[in-house]
């Protein structure tokens, strides 16, 4: 048979043989028969030198084309068989993908700490720094320095927890608010002052769904040569919008605190009703005088907010005790 005819026959019969190979062994045998040393292709190559030089180039091209085509078929079949072989092996390595995932548990920051951090970060972004102060505090810083008169009922043991410590005539107590740090911070720092003070505060209130002897506040103080009530409003409104959502509406209602004048409560509209969010006001000149600031030169605003209250408003918590008991099931909801 003519070489050309043989190659033609091979290119017609070989693809079926390749496709029929169902194992790597069968494919190797087929490959040896089709393109190996004893194959028609090899024989044709050996014959090429003996061919009429006029036809040698044409036949050479034909040999190469047939060989390349068949090798491509063989390689493709090999890929298919290899993948099938791997798939068969992996069947034994299967796992129920609906089983729970494996890995270390991630713990959770306490929800109150998360809220504290969030509040702090909002004010830090507005140019405030953060300070913290003692929880056991003198009566002077807790009351007197803040213009709270000696006769004010909040000083009584029915409202304030005292500790048996030292020989301070006025008494040493568990701070009832974070406001003492207003006075301490201003004593230690010259104006301008932009500071927020997070921390624990204490009251003589038995634990119930809305009261706790220990809770958290964040205090804020801005003192500069040009701070006005407008700054207080704009700044706290921005806080409310960041904390409760950008569409949050707020209103400021006149109120009374001994350490600010004028004083206000900020209410926010949330879940269909107005809720008191925080107390605030312009720093009372008497407080400036107590810390050695000149009230004719500086003005300032101050605010204080209850962290538990804010957490309750935002997270729909109906009983304060859920935030205080460190119940695994509660904490894990705020991972």
């Amino acid at each position, binding site marked *: 048979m003519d070489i050309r005819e043989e190659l033609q026959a091979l290119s017609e019969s070989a693809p079926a043989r390749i496709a029929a190979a169902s194992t790597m062994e069968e494919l190797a045998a087929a490959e040896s028969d089709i393109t190996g040393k004893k194959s028609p292709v090899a024989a044709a190559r050996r014959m090429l030198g003996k061919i009429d030089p006029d036809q040698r180039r044409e036949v050479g091209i034909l040999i190469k084309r047939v060989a390349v085509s068949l090798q491509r078929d063989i390689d493709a079949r090999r890929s298919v068989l290899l993948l099938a072989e791997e798939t068969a092996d992996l069947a034994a390595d299967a796992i129920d993908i609906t089983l729970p995932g494996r890995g270390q548990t991630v713990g959770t920051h306490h929800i109150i700490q998360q809220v504290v951090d969030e509040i702090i970060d909002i004010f830090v972004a507005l140019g405030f720094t*953060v300070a913290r102060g003692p929880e056991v505090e003198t009566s002077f810083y807790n009351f007197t320095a803040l213009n709270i008169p000696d006769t004010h009922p909040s000083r009584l043991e029915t409202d304030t927890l005292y500790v048996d410590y030292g020989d301070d005539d006025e008494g040493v107590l568990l701070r009832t608010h974070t406001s003492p740090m207003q006075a301490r911070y201003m004593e230690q720092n010259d104006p301008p002052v932009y500071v927020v003070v997070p921390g624990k505060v204490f009251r003589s209130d038995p634990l119930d769904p809305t009261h706790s002897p220990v809770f958290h506040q964040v205090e804020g103080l801005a003192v500069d040569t040009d701070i006005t009530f407008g700054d207080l409003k*704009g700044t706290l409104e921005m806080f409310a919008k960041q904390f409760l959502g950008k569409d949050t509406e707020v209103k*400021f209602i006149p109120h009374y605190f001994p350490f600010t004048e004028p004083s206000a409560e900020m209410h926010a509209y949330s879940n269909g009703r107005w809720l008191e969010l925080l107390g605030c006001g312009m720093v009372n000149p008497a407080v400036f005088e107590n810390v050695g600031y000149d009230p004719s030169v500086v003005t300032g605003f101050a605010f204080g907010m209850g962290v538990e209250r804010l957490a309750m408003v935002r997270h729909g918590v109906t009983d304060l005790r859920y935030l205080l008991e460190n119940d695994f099931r509660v904490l894990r909801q705020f991972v």
Partner: protein
Amino acid sequence: MKFPLSWLREFIDIPDIEIADIVEAFESLGHEVEEAYELNAAFSGVIVGKVVQVAPHPNADKVRVCQVDIGSGVSEIICGAWNFEAGAYVPVAVPGAVLGDDFTITQREIRGIVSNGMICSEAELGLGDDADGIMVLNDDYPGSTDAVGTDFAAIVGYPDLYFDISITPNRPDCMSVVGLARELGARLDLPLVDRMPELDVVEDAVPLTISIQDDRCPRFTARTVRGISVGESPHWMRRRLSLAGMRPINNVVDASNYVMMELGHPSHAFDRLRLGDSIGVRRAVEGETIATLDDLVRTLVADDIVVVDGVDRPVSIGGIMGGASTEVHAESVEVVIESAMWFPPMILHSSKRLQLRSEASARFERGMDPNFTMTTADRVAELLVAHAGGTAGSAYDVYPSPVEPLVIEYPLSETRRILGIDLDTSTSTAYLEKLDFSVTGDDPLRVVVPTRRPDVQRPVDLVEELARLHGFASIPGRVVSGTGGGLPADIIAERKLRRVLTALGLNEAMTFAFIGHQDLDVLRLAENDPRRDAIDVVNPLRDEEGVMRTTLLPGLIKTVAANHARGFVDLGYFEIGKVFLRSGGALPAQPDHLGFILTGERGGDIGGEARSVDVRDGVGIIERLSETMRVGLAIEPAVESGFHPGRCGQVVIDGQVIGTVGELRPSVAAAAGLKGRVVIGELALAPLVAAADPWTLVPPSSYPPVVFDLAFETGADVRAGSVVQTIRSAAGPELESVSIFDVYSGTGIGEGRISIAVRLSLRAADRTLTESEVTPMRKSIVEAVESGHDATLRGSV
């Protein structure tokens, strides 16, 4: 402050206005409305009638036949009450009227005569308890005699609006109807009707003598009223008192209470005959007693103040409560109305101590107007003349140092400085005048402050008034741009610690800062342990909260115990918080501590073996904290009370002990309500977060490491940590890491000996280490361990 709006309308002419608008107006002034709702009568279709004729019923003895003018004509009505005659103005439920929820009045035949409705009693109309007779309106119900044929509901004050407003402690002047009327009038631009009491006085034949011996009573005013007849107050007064939250008593006590609610100043009525002709005020004698109006005998202390009679017998605790001995009674005919001023702090302390907090003491402790006592007494007298049939007698007044109104110079620039807006002279003057300040001058304004406003002392207090009247909502907001300087380093470090601890699977706890002494017993702290010397809370809410915590462990242990009880045992918690320790200073030392606790099992995955937590989990946490904070921590074996003696260590930085880690003794854990191994640790936070220098990157080497293992046999008491220390000191800078991967004893190891296997990695920054370099390094490491720890090299790979 509780009141019906109709009462307020006596002082300002409020146009028809939505209840929500009134609420908003009060709120915008700083008077929070606790409650506001409509008051409606419990009846409809009842009109005012005038009885023109009363005749016996021909067929019945117990009822009479009345001809009643009901405006549209005269109706014949049968009535079973006998407390009226012709001429009485009465409420008539005409056919179609509805009483209560569903009692509809119809024409009804009674023994042959048709009754065209019903004349009603208080009880039938739901206006009171009196069911004995029908209501006779006449003079007791002002307006009723001009109202024949009109809706009776209007006569008894319906419809009306009820308000309960919470008054801030700086505004005693608003603890009255007139005070709130003044405020609301200022907001709604309505003038206040400020009428003075009018009295026809017949001077006392025997004047009272008054002697004030205590300057805590800066003013004592009195007026007598003679010829009264004690009885029930008119309905409108009882209704208003009830709505104001005060129980009607009789026309004398009610008049005093009514004036307190109306005008703000408390007063007290003494029976003149029981009191005598002298009255005094003095400091109480320690241990002195007085029977008060509530029939309790009160023991006084020297800080209290008393009103006394002519024989120095206490007849009242000044400003707080009257005495029983001079109480007005059913047969009283002459009264002395006292209207005084009392020193506010004294009232606060005495009333709290005596547990006698009343509407009167609440007002005096906040500060009343010293220049209003006479008006108060006169207004009470006016009511007694009108409703108890009395005649006004003499007035008495001891006021040694009259209080002049304060004058404040107010520069208008203060408005811009504090509020950020400008209010000109005329606007500012108008605002202040609406609140009854008198204002002269352009700038500064010269502002005369009414003596009823103790809260207004300085220009900034006027800023508040201007802001309130202008409206907080009308002041534009502006966001500050502070120069505070961002998060301080200690908070950044603390947040990093929290992140690491939570990444390690621990949950953050927050526990109370106070604990009980018993919590320290549970931990079995040594008797001389300074943590035993906890600072007492003077007035704890519970014994379990009696002392300030000196350690975070009790709170963490209780947190875990509570969760065990809820069914969760595989737990890790941490807390960062203050402990309170005695110091030399004015305040205790209050360092922040970091504590953690681990219980239960770990690694119990499908097909994997769960294992109990143990102290190495605690050490692991401390190692991770040490890495994170770049602090060189070491753990040294220790024995501490309450801890497992073989599983406890101290945490050391630079030779200083900063805390403890270990397992609780099983018996201590059990006493705390915990089962299994309990791993706890507590560290002082400050050394961990001490600001470190910014870290400078060490470029990683691109050359390969030489890794090899060494196993040493050494004494069983040799600590693995010290072997590692030896290797670190003996190796050169090429030592990249050293870690212990096996500790073994038993077959092949001598008695009392152990095998410690370590893996070392050596790597140079600038070259590939050659065998000829590594060999002497390995040799010196081996020699150091062998000589330092009585060790022999077992093998090397």
